[in-house]
């Protein structure tokens, strides 16, 4: 039982799950689940009670019983007590103060990550304003590598997302070349296929492999099919760089995605077995998103942000290259408007980073959400300030396969210019070698170039 008194009213919270849910900033998905605070005052009472709670409480009380859920077991079994020691005596409220203080240096935060559980991260984020989420996340660096190095200070990478509604290889190649000529693609070139047909998927993997190989592009490909398709492909000798899977914060949600922790281990081992990384061996790419657990009725009464943070425990068990919160994709029944999407994007980025993950965010919305490009500009700029590792690059922000709006190649350029963010170093060298960047690191006008690096590929597509 957890309590807080405001004036003459006493607020009581029966469980830790209820306390976390009611402390969460309002969002439609928590109202849909029936776990949101019923009044603004009740929400503040929950935050007051949460601020007084020792961080250790999360080690004593599992939100989903250990026996029932393998994500809980992962969280408990992997907890690093020594890493937790510097903050072991703090309450959640004092932890916020610590995170914002000069004591929480980049080095201290890196050492702390294995000692923090998802529930601790979610709890403290609920006491933090958007500004706090930016200030604290900015101090955290998580660097990963495969053929490019991602997450270095002052750098931003872009996942080039060249989707096509019918997986037409020429259409995908056209969007890929467009993105590369706009300086996008240093995080990866990642296709969401419309098909699940192994033969058609193989065409996409081989096309990207040839492009990357022929032009020496320091990046990695990914075809975001189900992980079993990717394992099969690896077994059949297909050139797979990154292994992708959507994951969630409960065993039941992962089951609804058709995955188990054992399957993810198998997938990672398969990816590593190909030894295709050059500057590093982070071979996994995960996507997550608030609301997924409720939509699969797999949330165990938890609020959606706490469920999301638990997904990061799954991710960090597999040393990923990229973790992407697809924040606005799920729709207005979970995140109703621009305000809720912006808040959730900052929470996910902060919580993931605090837990030691290479966080990117798909800054995005659907047409039935109360959001527009202005909201995405705000979130993208905030995430740039917060030091996000990577964002999406979709031609013209319009994903013609998935039917939603993400960030464009142009958005990536604008963010780089606004905040002085450079490409991944290997990719930057490649762009310079092909004269796509000028001496100031700015994209050159393609019409001023003597030759485009993909002239032959473009000419072939013209025929």
């Amino acid at each position, binding site marked *: 039982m957890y309590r807080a008194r405001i004036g003459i009213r006493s607020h009581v919270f029966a469980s830790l799950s209820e306390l976390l849910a009611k402390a969460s900033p309002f969002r439609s998905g928590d109202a849909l689940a029936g776990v949101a605070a019923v009044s603004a005052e009740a929400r503040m009472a929950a935050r007051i009670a949460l601020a007084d709670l020792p961080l250790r409480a999360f080690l004593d009380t599992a939100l989903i019983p250990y026996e029932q859920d393998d994500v809980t077991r992962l969280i408990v079994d992997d907890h690093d007590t020594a890493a937790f020691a510097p903050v072991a005596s703090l309450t959640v409220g004092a932890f916020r103060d610590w995170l914002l203080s000069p004591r929480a240096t980049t080095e201290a935060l890196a050492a702390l990550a294995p000692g923090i559980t998802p529930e601790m991260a979610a709890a403290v984020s609920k006491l933090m304003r958007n500004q706090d989420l930016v200030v604290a996340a900015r101090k955290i660096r998580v660097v990963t590598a495969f053929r490019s190095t991602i997450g270095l200070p002052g750098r931003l990478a872009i996942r080039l997302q060249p989707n096509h509604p019918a997986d037409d290889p020429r259409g995908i190649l056209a*969007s890929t070349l467009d993105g590369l000529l706009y300086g996008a693609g240093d995080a990866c070139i990642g296709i969401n296929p419309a098909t699940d047909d192994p033969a058609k998927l193989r065409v996409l993997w081989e096309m990207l492999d040839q492009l990357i190989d022929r032009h020496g592009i320091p990046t990695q490909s990914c075809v975001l099919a189900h992980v079993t398709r990717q394992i099969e492909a690896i077994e059949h000798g297909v050139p797979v760089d990154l292994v992708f899977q959507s994951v969630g914060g409960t065993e039941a949600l992962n089951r609804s995605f058709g995955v188990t922790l054992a399957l993810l281990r198998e997938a990672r081992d398969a990816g590593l077995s190909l030894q295709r990384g050059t500057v590093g061996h982070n071979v996994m790419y995960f996507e997550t998103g608030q609301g997924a657990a409720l*939509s699969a009725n797999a949330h165990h009464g938890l609020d959606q942000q706490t469920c999301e943070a638990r997904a990061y425990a799954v991710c960090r068990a597999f040393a990923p290259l990229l973790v992407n919160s697809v924040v606005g994709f*799920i*729709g207005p029944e979970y995140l109703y408007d621009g305000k809720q999407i912006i808040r959730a994007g900052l929470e996910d980025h902060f919580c993931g980073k605090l837990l030691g993950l290479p966080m990117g965010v798909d800054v995005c919305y659907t047409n039935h959400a109360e959001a527009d*490009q202005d909201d995405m500009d705000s979130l993208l700029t905030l995430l740039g300030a917060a030091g996000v590792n990577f964002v999406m690059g979709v031609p*013209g922000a319009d994903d013609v396969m998935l039917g939603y709006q993400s960030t464009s190649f*142009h958005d990536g350029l604008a963010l780089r210019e606004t905040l002085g963010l450079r490409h991944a170093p290997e990719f930057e060298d490649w762009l310079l070698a092909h004269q796509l960047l000028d001496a100031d690191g700015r994209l050159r006008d393609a*019409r001023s170039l003597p030759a*485009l690096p993909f002239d032959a590929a473009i000419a072939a597509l013209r025929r």
Partner: protein
Amino acid sequence: MSLPAHDDDAEPPLSPADPWNALRAHTPARIALGRSGASLPTRELLAFGVAHAQARDAVHAALDVTALRAGLAGFGLPILEVRSAAPNRAAYLARPDWGRRLDPASAAVPSASVTPPAVLFVIADGLSAVAAQRHAVPLLAATLPLLEGLAVGPLVMATQARVALADAVAIRLGARLVVSLIGERPGLSAPDSLGAYVTCAPQPGTTDAERNCLSNIRPEGLGYAEAAQQLVALIRAALAAGRSGVALSMQAAPAPSAIER
């Protein structure tokens, strides 16, 4: 007065398209847009704005049931009107559970005197009333003649409706199979895509894995005649098997996950 034939001092256009403009032939994606500094050229900013405006208008448009009723009248079938428990569009968007339940008032509407039909059509606004308004009548005109020999029930118009609202109507009318013709979430390229969800033996709590779905029905996507052929094939196969969805091995995809509907 004449236009200057050639002006060597004229500045080139501020934001021409990119030299690889020809690649646009291969994809509907917005490539080779050119740029103004790092940003979109004004013409592309406005083109995107128009597409988004149309999608937003489609989401918020109300189904004109009077006009739809007039269009459906020609089929010679009884016409019913139901609404979901979502009182308005804002509630509909935030509470998909309400959109799946019949409004208590309209729950009484379907008449017990109707003979239980084999096939029932529910025409629903969904996330694009524009799609239902434009495409439901021509799709039915192509579909109904192909259903010879099957008892087709009343045509039901449903507002503030999700796919599963059709289950509730079908259960009430005792229909063996229900087809929900419903406006899909508008994309930037198409604000008026109609979806057709086929559910055999609907029950309370039927999941999307138990439905089959045809998507993107509109003249520029899956045309009426082709959609009607596929739909009737699905209907007959589902009735023969006594089930629909993943269990029904057909070319048509099972309905995607429930997140957006």
